């Protein structure tokens, strides 16, 4: 039993991840404080926390991304620790530093580690020096001018990938197929990276394609122990956003898995890493492994790892932050398989346009081996200011097939009404024969999306029958509205027609 040197923890996030962290805090007997912008005053994470603090107006820059406002909220609330979740301020060394300076325990790597690992190219050079396999390309920023471009191309060959040193998310990223396109691509990537990250510097790498995205979960404590907590495959992506994630990564040879885990451990050591982190890799069809980057926080997809290892990664983040040592090597072993999908407020039929508005009804699936990490309930508003993740549905089973069957059954009973979502799209992805056979690569959805976004048919009579039954006032026992009615109600021949009349009058709007 851990004795925590903190009793109150501020959760510096919103949505499903804030709700998820609050649940673990409650299970550990710790007090939780939520933060919220004005758009989230009545959000689910605020309702579920023990206390809440306002951090500013709706735009993230003025609220969830404001180091000053979040640290001030923690002090006001009497918190002694801060859990950053993912995204927002989670990997910002200035935030970790501000927490440390304010006497708050930052549940994550130290400010020094975050600072020393914020430059992606420096990280690549550091891990390469530690023997971690990296993608071919110069370990320095791309200099201006044609000569530098030619030299880089010599090292990478074509197709070449141009990447922004300052950030990710697909911005500043360019695939260059031919030498004659290089100069123009570099110029436009520089412009985009400069605008997005305030840092126009680029670096060049060979393009590894086709390849799978496989990542390794690590936990590192204050005593130098680094534990590998298995791997995940997150190859199914759309515009660099993960769509489906699973653990363990299917169809990996033992040799490849060993290489991945060893590389992740070495990368963590090379960075002096602390707390939970993820080392991302590409794995090519020959099983060769290439380092991509280190995510210095809890990942969105951490529940699949929790499902197969039976560990609570957030609890371990808190324990490590409290100075506890990790259990010995081999204490955690994987069992079975788990798959997660991200249910997002977006419209697949309309270029995945983000959707916002009021959720009229929301049914989270339940069942054996099913876990839902959700951030919303029926009646909640989905504000337009933040990312579109509504909930994650995770299913586990003895085998990949069993987990997938449970996941599909869970999605079939998931209902989000009022805001468009990708649930039907996700079911079609899961049903894809190549996905079923675990023939995975990061270009899986390229050229497939069109076939997967189209909804077929209008649902036929069942849809109209459901509406008719609802507006004709079907009662709970399943009998027709007039049946069993006694007393004054029986005198009314149309007791169930209230909804029908409303509709006739067209009162809403």
């Amino acid at each position, binding site marked *: 039993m851990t004795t925590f040197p903190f009793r109150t923890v501020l959760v510096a996030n919103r949505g499903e991840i804030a709700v998820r962290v609050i649940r673990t805090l409650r299970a550990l007997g710790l007090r939780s404080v939520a933060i919220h912008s004005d758009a989230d005053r009545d959000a689910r994470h605020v309702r579920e926390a023990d206390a809440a603090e306002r951090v500013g107006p709706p*735009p993230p820059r003025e609220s969830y991304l404001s180091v000053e406002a979040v640290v001030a909220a923690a002090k006001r609330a009497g918190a002694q620790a801060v859990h950053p979740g993912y995204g927002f301020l989670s990997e910002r060394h200035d935030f970790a530093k501000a927490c440390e300076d304010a006497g708050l325990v930052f549940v994550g790597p130290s400010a020094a580690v975050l600072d020393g690992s914020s430059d992606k190219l420096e990280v690549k050079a550091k891990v390469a020096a530690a023997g971690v396999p990296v993608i071919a390309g110069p370990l320095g920023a791309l200099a201006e001018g044609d000569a530098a471009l030619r030299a880089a191309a010599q090292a990478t060959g074509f197709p070449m990938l141009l990447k922004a040193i300052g950030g990710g*998310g697909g911005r500043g990223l360019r695939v260059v197929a031919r030498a004659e396109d290089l100069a123009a691509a570099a110029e436009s990537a520089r412009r985009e990276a400069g605008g997005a990250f305030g840092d126009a510097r680029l670096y060049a790498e060979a393009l590894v394609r086709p390849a799978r995205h496989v990542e390794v979960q690590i936990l590192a404590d204050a005593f130098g122990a680094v534990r590998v907590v298995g791997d995940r495959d997150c190859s199914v992506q759309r515009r660099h956003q993960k769509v489906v994630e699973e653990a363990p990564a299917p169809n990996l040879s033992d040799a490849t898995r060993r290489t991945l885990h060893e590389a992740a451990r070495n990368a963590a050591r090379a960075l002096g890493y602390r707390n939970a982190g993820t080392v991302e890799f590409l794995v090519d069809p020959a099983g060769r492994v290439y380092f991509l980057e280190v995510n210095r926080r809890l990942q969105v997809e951490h529940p699949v790892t929790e499902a197969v290892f039976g560990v609570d990664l957030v609890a371990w983040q808190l324990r490590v932050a409290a100075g506890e040592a990790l259990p010995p090597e081999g204490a955690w072993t994987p069992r079975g398989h788990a798959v997660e999908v991200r249910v997002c407020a977006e419209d697949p039929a309309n270029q995945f*346009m*983000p959707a*916002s*508005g009021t959720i*009229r*009804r929301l*049914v989270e699936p339940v069942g054996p081996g099913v876990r839902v990490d959700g951030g919303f309930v029926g009646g909640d508003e989905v504000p*337009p*200011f*933040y*990312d*579109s993740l509504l909930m994650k549905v995770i299913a586990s089973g003895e085998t990949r097939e069993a987990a997938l069957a449970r996941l599909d059954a869970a*999605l*079939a*009973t*998931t*209902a*989000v*009404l009022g805001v468009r979502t990708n*649930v*039907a799209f*996700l*079911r079609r992805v899961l049903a894809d024969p190549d996905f079923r056979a675990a023939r995975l690569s990061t270009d899986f959805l390229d050229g497939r999306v069109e076939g997967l976004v189209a*909804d077929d048919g*209008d*649902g*036929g*009579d*069942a*849809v*109209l*029958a*459901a*509406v*008719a*039954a*609802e*507006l*004709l006032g*079907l*009662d*709970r026992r*399943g*009998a*027709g*509205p*007039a*049946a*069993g009615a006694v007393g004054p109600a029986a005198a009314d*021949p149309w007791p*169930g*027609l209230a*909804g*029908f009349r409303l*509709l006739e009058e*067209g009162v*809403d*709007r």
Partner: protein
Amino acid sequence: MSGPSHHGKWKADGGAARRVDVKLDAGPAGARLHGRVDDAHVEATVRRGGDGEVLLDVGGRRVRATVARAGDRWLVAIGGRVHEVARADGVDAVEGGPGSDPFAVSPMTGLVTKVHVAAGAAVAKGAPLFAVEAMKMEYVVRADRDVVVDAVKAAAGDRVAVGAVVVTFRA
């Protein structure tokens, strides 16, 4: 004893209007919904499940639907997919032809990041009119035909609701 009945025209998922003429009666295994959709006979056993849930047996097919009303539409989730059902004979039956709107609207609730046009500008089909950002995604709204801008109703930095008119065109 006879239960309530309903006559109306409906359309699901923007499809063709269908004439619905149904009645709900008590039955031994649940309520019996029966009647016609267009000219075809329909018959379903229906039961109430949990909140907003309707359990149907339609021609031997068991369906679990979750139903909610959103303004003038009904939303029906079956198998994770959401169908939108609207009256085709009532308040929301009138629709303009595609591409004929004398204005351009915001496709989502968000922040106007850029306005590319000004009043009086002649804009060619496909040229950008304005850009809106929400949830870390930017969407550029383009002219769907050659137009002359009459007025611009929003400026960069303004919040706009989905469907809000941002640019109007001259006739």
